[in-house]
């Protein structure tokens, strides 16, 4: 057992914990933005399906509108990748 209260922090330990923090941050970035994009797409998607049921012609347009919030999760992914590499 290592007594964390008194054990000295070695350089390796600091580096390892930094690595872990970066991985955590990357995970949070993707996960939280994913939730955000999901919430945003939820309303648009249901409206889009309704509109398409009414009129097939608007499919292209509503598909476009539905994927717009995906930008959020792309940003999250970019941040995560920059953190990791």
């Amino acid at each position, binding site marked *: 057992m290592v007594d964390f209260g008194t054990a000295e922090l070695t350089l390796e330990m600091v580096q390892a914990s930094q690595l872990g923090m970066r991985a955590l941050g990357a995970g949070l970035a993707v996960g939280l933005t994913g939730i955000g994009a999901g919430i945003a797409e939820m309303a648009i998607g249901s409206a889009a399906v309704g509109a398409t049921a009414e009129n097939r012609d608007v*499919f*292209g*347009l509503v*598909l*476009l509108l539905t*994927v*717009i919030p*995906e*930008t959020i999760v*792309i*940003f999250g*992914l*970019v941040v995560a*990748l*920059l953190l*990791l*590499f």
Partner: protein
Amino acid sequence: MLRPERMRRLLIAAPKGEIDTIIGELYRHNVYHIEDFVPESESAEALSIGHPLPGASDVASALNDVRAIENACGINPDSVEVKAKLPASKVRELIRTDLPAILEEVKGLVAARSRLEARQKEHEQRAKELEPFAAVPLDLDLYHGYTRFTVFTGHIAHDVSVDVPHEKYFSDRVDGNMIVVVVQNEYREQVERDLLDAGFQAIPVPEGTGSPADNQKAHLAEAQSASKEIAGVNEKIARIREKHTDFLVACDELLTAEVERAQAPLRFATTEETFITEGWVPDDRADRIRQALETVTNGRIYIEELEVDDAARVPVEYENPSFASPTQVLMDIYARPRYSELDPTLMVAIVFPIFFGLILGDVGYGAVLLALSLGLRRFLKGDEGRMLLKVLSFASISSIVFGILYSEFFGFALPWNAVLFSRHLNIGGEVHGHGPQVAELMIISIWIGVLHITLGRILGMINARKFHHGKHATKAVIANAGWLGTMWGILILIWSFYAIPMMPDLTGFPVAIAVGAVLLVAGVIGIAQENPLEIVELPTIISHVLSYARLVAVGLSSVAIAMVINFIAIGMMIEPQLEAITPIGVIAIIVGILVFLVGHVLNTALGLLGGGLHSIRLHYVEFFTKFYKGGGKKYNPFGMKSKFTEE
């Protein structure tokens, strides 16, 4: 190229006697887009909408008959392969001689089928009603005809005990149980209450005599014989379909053409003796159709070329080199270009496959998608579907090319190092060459974004001159330049503060700060002079450019999934078992192969979706919003390309 096809506006006037010939000639050439005549109530001239040609209603009813037969036989002209073109004269002859007989036969068969279906339904219904009674050993005659007794029949939740003199049958072999209770009339109400307390639901006693089980059997046998007869009728209909499909689709085509021709005068303006029509013809074919019309009418026709005064009224037809024309389907999904604006189809046709390849750069996936797009061509008959498949095949070729550059094959490395930047992630502890060059790829994608948006804004300046006139045009051009200046101003400012690899390093030049700041301020002023509210949109400059990072991000996620599948299937399941083969090991290997196959099939689908949607989205949202309006009218020439018949 880069512009919709040029159109000429023709006005044709001729005596009514020539209307037949002229309509026929226009239809044959299939280039004349009719502008429908709309009568104005206050119009001084006595112009009115024309009447259909004589015989129109006969042709229309014949077409109705043909469509009815096609419907009954399940023939869809769009999905019928063309075997040989039938001569139109022969089809006309056959319509007179053979069509009525075929129609009679099909009508008879369809009527017989619906009669049989009704019979089958009825007997099935009867059998179903008899089902609960079959569980009770009583003949049907025994249920009715009493004056002093009451008979309860119905479903019930559970058996009940009746404490008055009675006769009772209970069965739990049917759904919802079955109970039959016979009591004297004076106990009726009491028993009914007891039964209802136990969840009694009365069901009526079916008519008939004898044992319910025998009755049920008889009905089922009847239903079965009806369904056999239906199968026989269906077979007859199938034989008719086999025998007459070619003739029927030819009839359909010929009659559709005749109906269209016969109804064309409804779109013309007429006077007592003459008719007038206005329409559009592609520039390069206008002279030919003029000459043709003059020849067939012996000069009894007046054709004038009118000025194109309102560009919004001109129908729009694409004019693209053949490799770019399939991309028109992607344009139509968004909006057809207006007549006056630039047609970006060519640019989309070039850039879309590149984006797709950048995202899904993998030789394996590219080859699978290429095979898919070539294979599906046989099954997809519609024009749009085929065009989409062509777009997909170009995209997958680009994916293979980028796969070679990235050195990727289903997530494995090819025997060479990545020529472009490597996307090989460190999954499963195997790194080939150097690890992923994410930062470099990111910067490349930002560069692509900057250049793509710059191109969009330049096109925006060109289009602005076409949309607006006079002072407003200048304002719009300056606003577009302002957006461009703001973006580059921000870029130069960033470059002069931070040294970023693969981008100009301006940190040593204080002048650059000044240049950047001036560009930024001038740009913002340029934007604001058209509409100050647009300032709110300034952050989109950054978000749109960063949005191009998806080219790398989506691609990397697809690489990661592929590598994880490989690691799970091969590294974790198959390889450890290969050292010493045991019976359980064989199962593990088989499961590993399954994981590998299912995983890569899913990832191919994801890659197609991700690569396709994100590439086209970058065009629609980031590129088109800079310059493209769309909303042009579709060019729809009067006429038809005959598939099944020939004159």
